[in-house]
């Protein structure tokens, strides 16, 4: 899902916090119930089977992968073997890639929040020259396709000799107009100005009002911005693929793409250092594990929280 889809949802819920009683399902015939049940199950199979298969594939040997039932569990021993083989690929390089991914995504997350949240707050709560122009620019940049910006970004960073350094991905990642816009919408629609005025009367400085009143109230929105920033940066492929030429700087996404070229079944010209398919499956699992964990923790917000709309169940 594209993160921008939330803008309107946030605006809706923030602007009109109403509570409605639960909606009763429309009474429909048995045929309708069966039909919708079948559709739901078909989608469930389509979405979940590949993920389940991937989990099981990491526990098998390559021979088991071909021979056994696709949904059988291999063995802990095979999992262990796959892990050993994977980590011995270019000497622990998979762990280095994961560390790189974590470092890039985390640094970008910190910079995004430190810069983006105050920017959204200032545009929502303060009057200054150029405010409107800034807001329009934020919106336009937010809607620009990221792919079209990769070449100009490369030229720009090349000019300041940052290509190949970690900043060549962290700085573009940290440029996150969507986060600014989301916090802007929240502060401008949901934060009562009286609250800030009261804080100032009680002796809060401008910064104190932001830190003690606005920030704690905006915690769910900040968490949401952090979630989308982290997931988007962790799963990005094109930018690091272009910016980082050395394989020891790769994030996990680019790393597993490199592993793919060493799998003989997918690339017969693979060299001698071959990677077996279960090892590739395990590497893919490792590369998505942090995002899956974040998903599990963010599930309440994402599924039951903001997006459930005004008629919260």
């Amino acid at each position, binding site marked *: *899902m*594209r993160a921008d*889809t939330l803008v*309107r*949802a946030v605006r809706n819920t923030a602007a009109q916090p109403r509570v409605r*009683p*639960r909606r009763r399902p*429309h009474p*429909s015939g048995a045929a309708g119930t069966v039909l919708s049940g079948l559709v739901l199950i078909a989608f469930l199979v*389509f*979405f979940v089977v*590949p*993920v389940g*298969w*991937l989990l099981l*594939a990491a526990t098998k040997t390559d021979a088991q*992968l*071909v021979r056994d039932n*696709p949904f059988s569990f291999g063995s802990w021993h095979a999992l262990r073997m796959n892990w050993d083989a994977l980590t011995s690929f270019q000497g622990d390089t998979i762990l280095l890639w994961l560390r790189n991914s974590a470092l890039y995504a985390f640094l970008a997350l910190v910079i995004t929040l430190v810069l983006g949240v105050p920017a959204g707050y200032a545009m929502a709560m303060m009057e200054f020259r150029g405010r409107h122009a800034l807001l329009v620019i934020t919106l336009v940049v937010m*809607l*620009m*396709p*990221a*792919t*079209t*910006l*990769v*070449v*100009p970004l*490369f*030229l720009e960073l090349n000019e300041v000799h940052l290509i190949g350094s970690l900043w060549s991905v962290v700085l573009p990642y940290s440029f996150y107009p969507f986060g600014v816009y989301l916090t802007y919408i929240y502060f401008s629609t949901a934060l009562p100005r009286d609250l800030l005025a009261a804080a100032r009367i009680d002796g809060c400085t401008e910064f104190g009002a932001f830190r003690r009143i606005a920030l704690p109230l905006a915690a769910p929105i900040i968490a949401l911005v952090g979630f989308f920033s982290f*997931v988007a940066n962790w*799963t*990005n*492929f*094109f930018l690091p693929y*272009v910016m980082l030429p050395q394989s020891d700087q790769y994030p996990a*996404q*680019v790393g*597993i*793409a490199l592993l*793919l*070229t060493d*799998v003989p*079944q*997918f*690339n017969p010209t693979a060299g001698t250092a071959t990677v077996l398919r279960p090892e590739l*499956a395990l590497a*893919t699992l490792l*590369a*998505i594990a942090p995002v*899956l964990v974040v*998903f599990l923790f963010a599930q309440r917000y994402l599924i039951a929280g903001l*997006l*459930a*709309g*005004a*008629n*919260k*169940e």
Partner: protein
Amino acid sequence: MSARRLSGLLRFLYYIPGALAGVAGVMVWLFMLDPTVSPAASLLRLLGYGTFTAAIAPGHLAILFAMIAFWTGAGGWIVVMHGALNNIPLDIMEAARIDGAGPWRTARHIQLPMLRKWIVYMVILAFAAGTQLFVEPQLISEASLGVAGRDYSVAQLSYDFAFQNNNVNYAAAISVELLVVSLVVAAIFVTRSRFFDAS
């Protein structure tokens, strides 16, 4: 399990492939399309694709990329549309029921029109994502035993011009074209659907 819990659980499960956006999703689908290991091998053989190369023949690529994009992205939109459906005022739904509208008629004449803006929004973003296709064809071309080329998508072409042929100007021209196409299509959808009308 109550219907509400079940609905929440299903939405979460549908959303999980979103965590595999990018390279991971392509890896998964490479396996799914390889009849020697795929859990859907019998389905692939039924369709006449006995080998990996046959399954990813160049003529299939558009459908395969659409399927991968749907697999990783649809769950998020299901969550969004669920929220939007819950935002339809209850009195309207109540009035439709009193007037004798069944589920189909309610969906066709009440819910779909009221979701119009969300649907337009989804179409624009999904289209924009499609025009920016890069990682999927790039990986398929690396893994396809030479079946798929390195110049399948516009973004790949731009990449090759900039970083293989050192022709940044061509790459920039392609990027601008991509931008124009996205903007024009978005503008058409926005105007045709009266996206900015106050409802």
